[in-house]
């Protein structure tokens, strides 16, 4: 049997590949470091999987899950995990990630990414489940920090401390969503610098960037805008402290022309290259 699969994403800029761009990407094969897709959209095989196989011939693919519910208080969904394992075996992705969130309780399934209190109890719970997933997939899972609109008074640590402890216990990696951190800083008053210092740089394997929108004073993670200047600034700060990593442009709502996403990816690439030169010097 093969050993655990490793993460092989290049330290370059990629885009979230969505259905409106499948055809153009396959026809024109633009210069992209890699692409990321949502795992669940390829469960069950069929037509979508055929497209993904063709994409896979040209680009490293990262599988980004939204449904595993690492913190859900229902048993880990065996069918869901099997579908993910099968997809991983078929696609041989360069990275596999999930969110630090929950989505099911007491028979209710909420198809969203929900926050929970960062307690010792939750840490034990999530660590057990991350172990289970990594064991099943025979590879490192990247766990993404969440954008939240509310927080819990019972939290015993910050999200950054929680993630740091989680990587130590399970060996999982971190998918650092810079925009999510920015949203939390603005919404919840999270200390962005403290978060950057709390997570171990070596565990960070990927960055995400996206645009948010505003609703009644709350920043909502809608992935429907270009990356805002403040988020670029935060990204630069993250690059200086943690170093260059594969960086993804996410756009999921009101998806623009591919050229717009390529433009955003180029901006990320410039910043990545600048910091790589610094590191080399």
């Amino acid at each position, binding site marked *: 049997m093969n050993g655990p699969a490793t993460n092989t994403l290049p330290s370059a800029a990629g885009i979230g590949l969505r259905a409106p761009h499948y055809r153009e990407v396959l026809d024109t094969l633009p210069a992209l470091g890699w692409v990321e897709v949502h795992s669940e959209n390829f469960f069950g095989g069929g037509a979508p999987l055929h*497209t993904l196989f063709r994409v896979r011939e040209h680009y490293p693919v990262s599988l980004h899950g939204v449904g595993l519910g690492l913190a859900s208080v229902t048993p880990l969904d065996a069918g*869901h995990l099997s579908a993910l394992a099968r997809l991983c075996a078929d696609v041989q992705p360069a990275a596999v990630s999930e969110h630090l969130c929950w989505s099911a*309780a007491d028979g209710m399934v909420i198809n*969203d990414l929900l926050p929970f209190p960062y307690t010792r109890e939750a840490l034990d719970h999530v660590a057990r489940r991350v172990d289970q997933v990594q064991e099943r997939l025979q590879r490192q899972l990247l766990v993404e920090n969440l954008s939240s609109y*509310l927080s819990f008074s019972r939290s015993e640590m910050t999200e950054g401390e929680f993630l740091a402890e989680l990587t130590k216990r399970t060996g999982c990696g971190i998918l650092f969503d810079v925009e999510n951190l920015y949203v939390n800083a603005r919404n919840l008053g999270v200390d962005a610098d403290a978060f950057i210092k709390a997570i171990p740089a070596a565990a960070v394997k990927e960055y995400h960037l996206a645009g948010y929108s505003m609703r009644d004073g*709350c920043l909502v993670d809608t992935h429907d805008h270009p990356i805002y200047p403040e988020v670029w600034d935060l990204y630069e700060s993250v690059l200086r402290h943690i170093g260059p990593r594969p960086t993804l442009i996410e756009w999921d709502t009101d998806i623009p022309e591919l050229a717009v996403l390529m433009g955003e990816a180029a901006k990320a690439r410039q910043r990545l290259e600048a910091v790589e030169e610094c590191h080399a010097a």
Partner: protein
Amino acid sequence: MLHDELSHFAQAIVHGHMPSPRIRQAYADYSAETALGVYRNNYRGNLHDALAGAYPVIKQLVGDDFFRFLARQYIEQHPSRSANLHHFGLELAGFIATFEPAKELVYLPDVAALEWACHVAYFADDGDVLDLNALAQVPPERYPDLVLHTHPSCHVVRSHYPIAAIWHAHQPGASEDFHIDLDGGPGYALVSRKDDIVQVSELTEAEAVWLQGIQAGARLGDATVTTLEHYPDFDLQATLLKLVAQNTLANFNLEKTP
């Protein structure tokens, strides 16, 4: 502790209950109620969008506002059970059949059943391809013992109304200037997937009956004889050519002569 807290939170999102007092109440620029509103909106919005993705024809037939109203009632009665949104919407045809505000659109439940079959066909596994070389090796006297297998995407939807015509009139690129007469007799819509495209075509009643027999595992000889008893005009050759052209037949095996 964690369980109670998340359960409370879920109730607040799904059933509009008051949130747990353990949720922080004050934020710099908005209230806890605003934050909960975002989550409630996500919950219903994501399910609405999943339903709209699976049922684009129903949405066009009833219009966006009515579809939103219908989706909202459906979500109340049939909440999500899966972390994969593509599973959401399985019971819509049955729901519409009992949905008072839509009762005048008598064909709507059948169109919904057809759309769900298309949705499932899109994600269905690949089947075997009919191996004509292997078929050529079968001696003709064994043809009655052939058991034909259909492609996993293949599904027949039966209706009193011309649902295949309704479906086609609502596909991208179809003329907006259409008129469909509901009194055209019963319709049998065949759903299949070929080269990643989900297709809908019409079957005659004889073809539908024959295919149902085949899908139930009947041998070619028996299914054909049974069909001919009721439909003397049934044309097996034309039917087979049509089904193969649509990638509906996967593979076959030979059953022992009884």
